[in-house]
């Protein structure tokens, strides 16, 4: 028993164990609350989006916290995953496939699609650094949104039909519009469930933690901490940055697919610049490189605005102020020293308990 506890809460695994525990315990508690009917309809409707945003934010934290590159286009990758899922689910549900299987295929396809596009983009983009990289990822998010906003996709007996800017699709009888430009995705057969979201969050945590604690993860963090030194020990900095970027977009794609199949209709502007910024807020508020922090802050910041509807006009204003305060506080030397001392005190006490 003691051995197991040491393994779970040792220096190497503590944050991993805590993250998994937070997710599993919340899932059990929330499931019980749903079963007993003590959760409001509004809250239940927020469960899947919360899971989706957590997965996308975990991916973003890999990119911003672990790899140290500012990415302002994460919502763009969610959008890719979402609309890939809409198209596929349109095809499969017409064939009367099992919804669980559809969801699984859509999430995998969304993740793969977002990874491929993430990889294509990373080749030119990761030659840039800092602000320039941020600007390009921002532009990328906008481009994806505009493209999808002008995309028409229909499905009928003859297969898939695509049109761009104007709807020139002439679908055969019994055909169905899957994406109708600015009207967005319509008639999606919903397949996402809270349990699916919970499993996806677990998978994302599994991927992120296993990646960090491995050869590739060390290389990613080394390239972040000191580029020149990383190359001096034989690490290809561009390759590691690409890896982090691709895995981050992969998670965003999976999250987008989960999100999309939760609604029967939604528009492309659901994934706009503000959402990329929101994801960044979740990550920064939860703490860079801190995965359990990301989970908690994402859940809070998705749910709180719904509870505090009367403040919704000031939401972005409040986020901006919070971001600025966090940046000032986290760069304050005096506070850092105090936090260090507090941490020492706490861990010192814990050690004492273990010995006795």
């Amino acid at each position, binding site marked *: 028993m003691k051995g197991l506890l040491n393994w779970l809460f040792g*220096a190497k695994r503590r944050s991993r164990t805590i993250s998994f525990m937070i997710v599993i315990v919340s899932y059990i508690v929330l499931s019980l609350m749903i079963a007993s009917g003590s959760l409001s309809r509004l809250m239940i409707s927020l469960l899947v989006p919360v899971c989706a945003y957590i997965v996308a934010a975990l991916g973003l934290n890999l990119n911003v916290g672990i790899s140290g590159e500012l990415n302002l286009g994460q919502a763009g990758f969610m959008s890719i995953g979402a609309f890939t899922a809409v198209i596929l689910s349109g095809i499969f549900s017409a064939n009367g496939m099992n919804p669980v299987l559809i969801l699984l295929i859509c999430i995998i396809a969304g993740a793969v699609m977002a990874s491929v596009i993430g990889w294509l983009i990373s080749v030119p983009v990761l030659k840039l650094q800092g602000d320039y990289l941020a600007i390009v990822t921002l532009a990328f998010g906008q481009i994806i949104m505009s493209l999808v906003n002008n995309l028409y996709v229909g499905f009928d007996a003859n297969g898939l039909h695509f049109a761009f800017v104007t709807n020139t699709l002439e679908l055969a009888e019994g055909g169905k519009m899957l994406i109708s430009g600015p009207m967005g995705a319509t008639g999606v057969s919903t397949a996402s469930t809270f349990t699916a979201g919970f499993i996806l969050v677990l998978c994302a945590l*599994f*991927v992120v933690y*296993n*990646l960090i604690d*491995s*050869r*590739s*993860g*060390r*290389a990613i*963090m*080394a390239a*972040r*901490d*000191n580029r*020149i*030194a*990383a*190359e*001096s*020990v*034989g*690490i*290809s900095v561009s390759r590691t940055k690409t*890896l982090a970027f691709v895995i981050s977009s992969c998670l965003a794609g999976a999250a987008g697919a989960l999100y999309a199949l939760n609604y029967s209709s939604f528009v492309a502007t659901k994934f706009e610049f503000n959402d990329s910024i929101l994801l960044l807020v979740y990550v920064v508020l939860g703490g860079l490189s801190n995965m359990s922090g990301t989970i908690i802050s994402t859940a809070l910041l998705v749910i709180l605005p719904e509870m505090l509807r009367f403040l919704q006009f000031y939401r972005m204003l409040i986020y901006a102020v919070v971001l600025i305060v966090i940046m000032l506080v986290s760069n304050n030397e005096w506070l850092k020293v105090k936090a260090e001392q507090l941490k020492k005190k706490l861990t010192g006490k814990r050690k004492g308990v273990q010995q006795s």
Partner: protein
Amino acid sequence: MTETKTPVLKVTDLGIDFGGLTAVNDLSMNVYENEICGLIGPNGAGKTTVFNMLTKVYQPSRGTIELCGKSTEKMSTIEVNRAGIARTFQNIRLFMNMSVLDNVKTGLHNDISYGTIESILRLPRFAKQEKEADAKAMELLKIFGLDEKADVIAGNLPYGEQRRLEIARALATDPKLLLLDEPAAGMNPQETDELMKTIRFVRDHFKIAILLIEHDMKLVMGICERITVLNFGMMLAQGTPAEIQSDPEVIKAYLGE
């Protein structure tokens, strides 16, 4: 006697210009197997620039660098490291937010062959190679007296220990030639004595050649078998410590006339 050994590093007529400024010119030197060589000179003589050319941070404008008989002309910094040159930096460049152990394991990057997918799925090869890497890294840390601080974040180590950790990380890449850029900078006399012993031990234990830049003359004269003196980017003298100490040109460069 050294002439019969094979040179690990052979530098011929090396030179580099930055715009119109010639930083290093006509430098020729050899470093032989199992040898500790020194590169000294007044501030601004171009010593670190030489290191940066050897590791291809800068591409030399003239001359050739051969590592064990192989030209490094077409190699990148990464390839030079894989070919067998590891270095430390004058201004310490550790991975400051990573643990001491992870810093050394990062040095083992090219020693580990499992892929990203294998690590995400935790396949057996991952566990096996991580265990080996842990053992190798701990062995290196022990040599530098850092094994008890394996879990400490590198940025929280005192200065002297950071310097030693940097050497350990460089050694983890399994080099044939180790370049040390002012390893004793900021150390007190006891620490410097300790470091001299460690450098000799490293040479004997790993059977590698070492080229070091240092201002601490006690260290240079104490452990280097041969010394090259640079001044204003030009080679001023080359020889054993005794020869260098009595060379009138060197004395002039260091003390002025």
